[in-house]
């Protein structure tokens, strides 16, 4: 059964077709990649899945529910979390606070009870702090919990974004260029890290990436976009030898 399925989704901005007739089929616990040259529509595809954009045509199914017209926060509640290509942390808040915000969607006590510190709220707060501390430990950020997010080095900011996304208890994690700005050593660590979190949190992972080493090393299946059109789909070996993909990336003489 597919955890995420898109049915001919198309996104038009005025006359520009950013993504056309994209059909994704992602199974439970898969790691799937989405690649393509700059401006191919990869992030637009992500934005449609998380409802930042509503597709001009087509529909999106998550766990067999139609989520095409949901709001972004509803989609996160259903279990799709994401990171951003240009890191979007809560800069003036501490590392721990950033992850705690990811827990807020599961808070059941009303606002007034959070002010009056009702026993139920206190339990919720205690639980979310423990959970966040564990997440930060898993991501090797436990030493920076009280630092402001903007003061972290780039690599740690990327990891904090993943920790924050994991705090929302996702079933499907969308990573938008997780290896951007990482050195080769960090990229290798990232690959094993992606495998680790999949096992640990029982995740399905869908990622956009430019570093071919990471994409080919970690993804089980890959979709290739070029000018919004899906030009290939298959396992890393098939993609590497697909003439259309080579043409899109290297050009043809």
């Amino acid at each position, binding site marked *: 059964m597919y955890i995420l399925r898109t049915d001919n989704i198309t996104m038009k901005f005025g006359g520009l077709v950013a993504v056309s007739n994209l059909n994704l089929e992602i199974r439970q616990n898969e790691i799937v990649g989405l690649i393509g040259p700059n401006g191919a529509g990869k992030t637009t595809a992500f934005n449609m899945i998380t409802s*930042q954009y509503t597709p001009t045509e087509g529909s999106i199914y998550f766990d067999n529910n139609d989520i095409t017209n949901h709001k972004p926060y509803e989609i996160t509640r259903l279990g799709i979390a994401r990171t951003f290509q240009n890191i979007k942390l809560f800069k003036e808040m501490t590392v721990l606070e950033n992850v705690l*915000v990811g827990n807020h969607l599961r808070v059941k006590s009303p*606002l007034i009870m*959070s002010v009056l510190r009702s026993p139920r709220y206190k339990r919720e707060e205690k639980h979310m702090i423990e959970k966040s501390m564990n997440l930060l430990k898993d991501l090797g950020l436990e030493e920076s919990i009280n630092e402001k997010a903007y003061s972290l080095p780039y690599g740690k900011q990327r990891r904090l974004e993943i920790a924050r996304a994991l705090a929302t208890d996702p079933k499907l994690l969308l990573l938008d260029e997780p290896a951007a700005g990482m050195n080769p050593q960090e990229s290798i660590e990232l690959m094993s890290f992606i495998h680790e979190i999949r096992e640990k949190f029982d995740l399905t992972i869908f990622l956009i990436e430019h570093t071919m080493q990471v994409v080919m090393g970690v993804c089980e299946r890959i979709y290739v976009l070029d000018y919004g059109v899906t030009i290939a789909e298959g396992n890393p070996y098939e993609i590497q030898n697909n003439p259309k993909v080579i043409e899109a990336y290297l050009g043809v003489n």
Partner: protein
Amino acid sequence: MEREKLIKRILTVTAISAAAGLLVLFNFIFDSYMLRIVNLAGIYITLALSLNLIYGFTGLFSLGHAGFMAIGAYTTALLTMSPAQKQMNFFLEPLVPWLANVEWSFFPALMVGGLLAAVTGFLIGAPALKLRDDYLAIATLGFAEIIRIVFTNMQSVTNGPLGLKGLPPYTNIWWTWGIAFVSILFMVYLFQGSYGRAFKAIREDEVAAEAMGINLFRHKMLSFTIGSFMAGVGGGLLGNLMGTIDPLMFRFLLAFNILLIVVLGGMGSITGTVISGIVITVLMEYLRFLDGPMDLLFFKTDGIPGLRMVIFSIMLMVVILFFQRGIMGNREFTWDFLFKPDRLKKNNVEGE
């Protein structure tokens, strides 16, 4: 750790008792003019905290505060004035019968004033909070003006441009500072909790906050409505302190004064708002001598009206030039400096 917590708690309780003791002392030794300044400071703290909640913490640039204050002030006034007093005020057109004979005590009147302001905030917020930044500021400013114009024209309820005179002088140091204290506590606990963090997340990055599963509209409405409630209560206190209210009092300028306190104190700092609320209220009065005649050795004036505001503006510019993010930035006062002197230093460096 436990011991440190206990010491901090003792220090906090001591500080609060000291503040209360100081207020008792002020109540004893100050004349009515000085007491009025102390009262104003308390009211401005409540009002500035309410705007800081909306603007400094949640990032909603709202300029509608004068409108909510007007609602609070008029409601409290009409509910607390004696029927005889009302009859004297409404000589052009009689007051509507369902208000003519009510005379409530102060606290329930204040709360109803706050609630009406909150309901108005809710109704204004529903359409306006779909806007952002400058557009939201313009929309809320417009709504505040609408409220003022409506009040100017509802002759049989608000007495129109004549305003209301002879409000019972219920407001005293215990009401103003009591409510300021409750507001401070409310804010401190709110921003230690999950909802406070969600508000701050919205201020920091709306797209990311929504991607974290935060219902933006609902949280913005919460922040805006609670802020309106506090503004209404503050307005009620202010009205009964002044003894006279009229629609002209609640012009844009009033909202601007409160905005000034928030920005100078530091957006997103409760401590900053309290400090700058007190400092600005006291300075506004203390600098009054500048408007009067002065005799400086080589130059005499017979009083230049408005010189106070000139000096005040210069001081403002100096503060903003040297502390771009206000007195406190978004930091809060804690007792930590007593325990970890080196950590405070580090935080300061980061804060620059």
